[in-house]
């Protein structure tokens, strides 16, 4: 029987290729797709096995003009770019197939009296014909191509939301187009929004830093939603933590000044934003329980201070730290 292998001698091996291929089966395609992808090799050739002989289909564009379809030798050139992925796909497929080549002889047309090509050029993809399938080099190549496309369609199904029910190629393409268009429109809209929100394109460092805090936090808690309310909340949390690092008295002072300005403010937001200058020196931690407690404590302090002040009560601990308002 024939041993199937794909020759990748002429191709530069990619160090990340093993992990890439391993990840293919695990469905982690999305993450690994952009990284470590191999360059297309235009000189690959598709070697098709059928009819107990080797039919070489050369896909090199240089050889195209030299192709002559005689009765005996079949050197059909299809100028397709077969990528390395196709190589390995073909390889994995052929090892799994049940090949019954004895029936293949009846399927061949007169044109396909192919002889074994003596020149074993590198980068051939070995494909074996199923029982009862045409071993026409064209149809085999077509089948390889089709299977490759359907393979990628499957990955796209995982990527594009709501594509699970659609099976046909046309429908899938439609969904993909809609999704890409909607993403592009979102980018447009967001850039417009940023242009209005920020007149002058001065995204200050503090803002960026806070954003990085937010992003690092979202990476730790992927289950949490991305709504604006949550984002504000977690930003505040992280800022509180940072503020507490800056020193207790500083925090208290800020709370005091915050109180002076807006006594009715339930959120401890304002004073934290005023202390944004101390961000650059401090590394925030993502200690969420402590943050939450911090936030609640400050809120509690604020709420309790209001009645304290109104009753002019100075006996409590919180009250003692704060200078009483006259």
């Amino acid at each position, binding site marked *: 029987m024939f041993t199937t292998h794909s020759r990748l001698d002429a191709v530069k091996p990619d160090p990340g290729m093993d992990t890439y291929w391993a990840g293919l089966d695990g469905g982690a395609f999305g993450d690994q797709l952009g990284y470590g992808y191999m360059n297309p090799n235009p000189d690959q050739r598709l070697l098709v096995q059928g009819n107990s002989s080797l039919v070489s289909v050369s896909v090199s564009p240089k050889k195209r003009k030299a192709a002559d379809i005689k009765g005996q030798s079949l050197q059909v050139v299809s100028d397709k770019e077969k990528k390395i992925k196709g190589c390995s796909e073909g390889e994995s497929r052929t090892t799994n197939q049940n090949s019954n080549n004895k029936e293949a002889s009846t399927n061949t047309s007169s044109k396909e009296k192919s002889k074994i090509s003596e020149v074993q050029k590198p980068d051939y993809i070995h494909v074996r014909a199923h029982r009862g399938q045409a071993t026409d080099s064209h149809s085999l190549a077509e089948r390889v191509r089709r299977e490759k496309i359907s393979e990628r369609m499957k990955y796209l199904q995982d990527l594009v939301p709501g594509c699970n029910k659609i099976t046909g190629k046309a429908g899938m393409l439609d969904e993909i187009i809609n999704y890409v268009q909607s993403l592009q429109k979102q980018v447009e809209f967001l850039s417009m929004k*940023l242009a209005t929100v920020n007149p002058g394109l001065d995204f200050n460092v503090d803002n960026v830093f806070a954003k990085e805090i937010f992003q690092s936090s979202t990476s730790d808690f992927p289950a949490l939603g991305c709504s604006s309310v949550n984002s504000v909340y977690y930003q505040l949390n992280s800022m509180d933590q940072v503020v507490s690092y800056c020193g207790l008295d500083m925090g208290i002072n800020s709370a005091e000044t915050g109180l002076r300005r807006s006594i009715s403010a339930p959120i401890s937001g304002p004073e934290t934003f005023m202390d944004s200058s101390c961000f650059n020196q401090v590394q925030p931690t993502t200690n969420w329980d402590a943050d939450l407690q911090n936030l609640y404590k400050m809120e509690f302090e604020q709420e309790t201070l209001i009645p304290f002040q109104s009753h002019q009560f100075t006996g409590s601990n919180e009250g003692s730290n704060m200078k009483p308002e006259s």
Partner: protein
Amino acid sequence: MHTCTKLKSEFIKKWMKGLQICCSSKTNMDFLERKKKIKLCADIALASAKNSTTSWCIALISEAKKHDENKTLVDNLLGPELRIKPQKTNHQMSASHKRARSKKILKKSHHVCQRMKKMGPPKSNIATYITKILVKERTQVLKRLVPGGESMDEISLIKEALDYILSLKVQVDVMRTLANATEVLNQSDSTIFD
């Protein structure tokens, strides 16, 4: 949910850098100009942050470089190591153009030969015929959407589309959070000084 935070932080850094370069050149820009600058910086930053050789990245960058005003911006953003790429990309693009064209010629001749062979009705199965037309139409549309998609065959087109969708998702994510953050900051600033 994908957690490409490394890509995100790369993207932000490059985007901010590009915007700073933009700001330094002009002082007063109207709304549409600002929006264009933001979007352009974002696109270039994304394409360069990926640091891969997918053709949509290359196509985006080379497209941006065509306009002289963006050239310095792009060069500064990309950095020295990626400046070599444009030469390679031109060669790649021309090579792929040639390949696409030659492929089309070959396909046409092949189709003609096949049609001569089978005298049977080519539209015997209406459904598949319609499907084929639809698929062809939609691949055309997709080629227009994905940057650099004109000179790609179906297989690589789908692969590029995959990659492009992933990076678009990242871009949208980052921009959305930045917009929200700036909005919140502006709101809180206004409440302080009320």
